[in-house]
């Protein structure tokens, strides 16, 4: 070209970002987060000094119980749970949650994207999903238990359904929010249907879908535990149910603590992974640091 472009001013040249530049914040922990936990522990400790230990044991004694029962819990066998340690109960619960999140998330997100683009399918599916989204999902638990028994299937189905509804709504909203000009631009550049899906619809909706997935994941742990509590033979919820029958507050708190740790850990992992995946999106980057 016959033109000499002016040398960009230094601040403009400085914006040429490196790969790390945009994503550098994803692992950073907010210094206030540990402070929040510390405050909670302090209140708990304080209360446990006034309340009798059988209704509120101190944090340290709960941690000790968590450690004792982690790999082997003979007293659970006493209540009829053979070979149940907190560790393998948590694994059972975790497997169910992950299967439900993957299956429900995929189905829900695909359905949301498809109905986001097809008015007919949307008119068919929306009322069903909206109703499902309004009714508290737990009312389905008794029916699932009658139909599928107390095995994995009941609780996994319940959580799958919960995740699917959230992801359906998130994906549909993401699809609605996607500016049609991007698809127009892609088509004038030669993109066919498949390329539009891969290069426009998916990347353009991914931050909102991942945000929905994270919300669903956070809720899924509690829902799975409650489903197990209502009827299951294994899992952390089952352990809580058994301990509740024996008014074992220390044991119950140990289970809840473990469930909380796992849920928070997975949320942090998910937040970091999602921030990486939508590094182009400012909002996702700020909100994703978990």
């Amino acid at each position, binding site marked *: *070209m*016959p*033109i000499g*472009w*002016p040398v*960009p001013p230094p601040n*403009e*040249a400085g*914006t*040429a*970002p*490196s790969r790390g530049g*945009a994503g550098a914040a994803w692992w950073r922990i907010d210094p206030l987060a540990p402070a929040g936990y510390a405050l909670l522990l302090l209140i708990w400790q304080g209360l446990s000094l006034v309340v009798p230990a059988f209704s509120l044991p101190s944090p340290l004694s709960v941690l000790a119980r968590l450690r004792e029962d982690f790999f082997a819990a003979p007293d659970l066998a006493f209540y009829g749970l053979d070979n149940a340690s907190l560790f393998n109960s948590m694994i059972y619960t975790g497997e169910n949650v992950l299967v439900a999140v993957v299956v429900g998330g995929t189905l829900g997100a695909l359905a949301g994207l498809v109905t986001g683009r097809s008015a007919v399918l949307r008119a068919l599916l929306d009322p069903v999903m909206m109703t499902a989204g309004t009714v508290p999902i737990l009312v389905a638990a008794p029916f699932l238990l009658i139909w599928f028994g107390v095995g994995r299937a009941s609780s996994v189905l319940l959580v799958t359904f919960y995740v699917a509804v959230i992801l359906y709504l998130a994906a549909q909203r993401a699809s609605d929010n996607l500016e049609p*000009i*991007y698809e*127009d*631009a*892609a*088509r*004038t*550049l*030669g*993109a*066919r249907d498949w*390329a539009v899906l891969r*290069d*426009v619809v998916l*990347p*353009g909706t*991914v931050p909102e879908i991942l945000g929905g997935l994270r919300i669903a994941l956070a809720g899924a742990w509690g829902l799975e535990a409650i489903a197990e509590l209502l009827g299951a033979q294994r899992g952390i919820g089952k352990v809580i149910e058994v301990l509740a029958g024996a008014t074992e507050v220390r044991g119950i708190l140990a289970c809840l603590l473990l469930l909380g740790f796992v849920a928070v850990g997975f949320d942090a992992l998910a937040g970091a992974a999602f921030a990486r995946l*939508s*590094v*182009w*999106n*400012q909002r996702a980057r700020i909100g994703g640091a978990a």
Partner: protein
Amino acid sequence: MNMVATPAMIALEGAGRVFHRADGGRVVAVQEVSLAVAEGEFVCVVGPSGCGKSTLLQMIAGLLAPTAGLLSVGGAPVAGPGPDRGVVFQKDSVFPWMRAIDNVAYGLRCRGVGRAERRAVAARYLDAVGLGHVAEAWPRELSGGMLKRVAVATVFANGARVLLLDEPFGALDYVTKRQLHEVLLALWAEGGTGARRTVMFVTHDVDEALTLADRIVVMNAGRVVEDIAVRAPRPRDTDALLRPEMVAHKHLLLRHLGLERLARPGTAP
């Protein structure tokens, strides 16, 4: 249909488009437009805001179906968008999820050009629009004018024979705009006079139209109301715009835009 010796690259016969607004109102955005643009011709479209320029371009691009008339490009009826017609949109259309260089390379990617090759081409066009130094930036890190230049580079890199440009340089500062005029004219004439691309260029800037166009089409309220042939040789510098026939064109355009009174056409000072 158009049966002239040199068939028109873009041919419109009584083309029109009616919109139905959400509040029930009916908007006639384009009506009764018949236009034949020869291959290699550089046409500027000017007219007041809301007169239907973007609608006209979108119909030629295949993104809006006409509600009346016939449209054809390269002899074939327009049936949808395609890579034979490059479009720079009036609104921002740069994919926020691709880096600048991947945006520019996207059309080549759709055609199956290998990664290294398409990135090399993209880098060349980013350089041409003065954005070589931000090739790896995300769109959210670029200014409005820079985004517009990414969109222009994207369309240039894709090499379409027909370019539909909707106020491509409207958001740019004067200096950048002048430089991009040269880039655009170089691209337009690439491969010699016989191989010129066909350009439809929407602008509000009368001087820009006079600098670039072979022909200026004036629209008003959805219709074509004037069709001016600009024969001044290129490149047209500041002095070229002061030649008497250019000044006369300018007065005519200003009158159509309502800036000078239409009262006695031809008696401009």
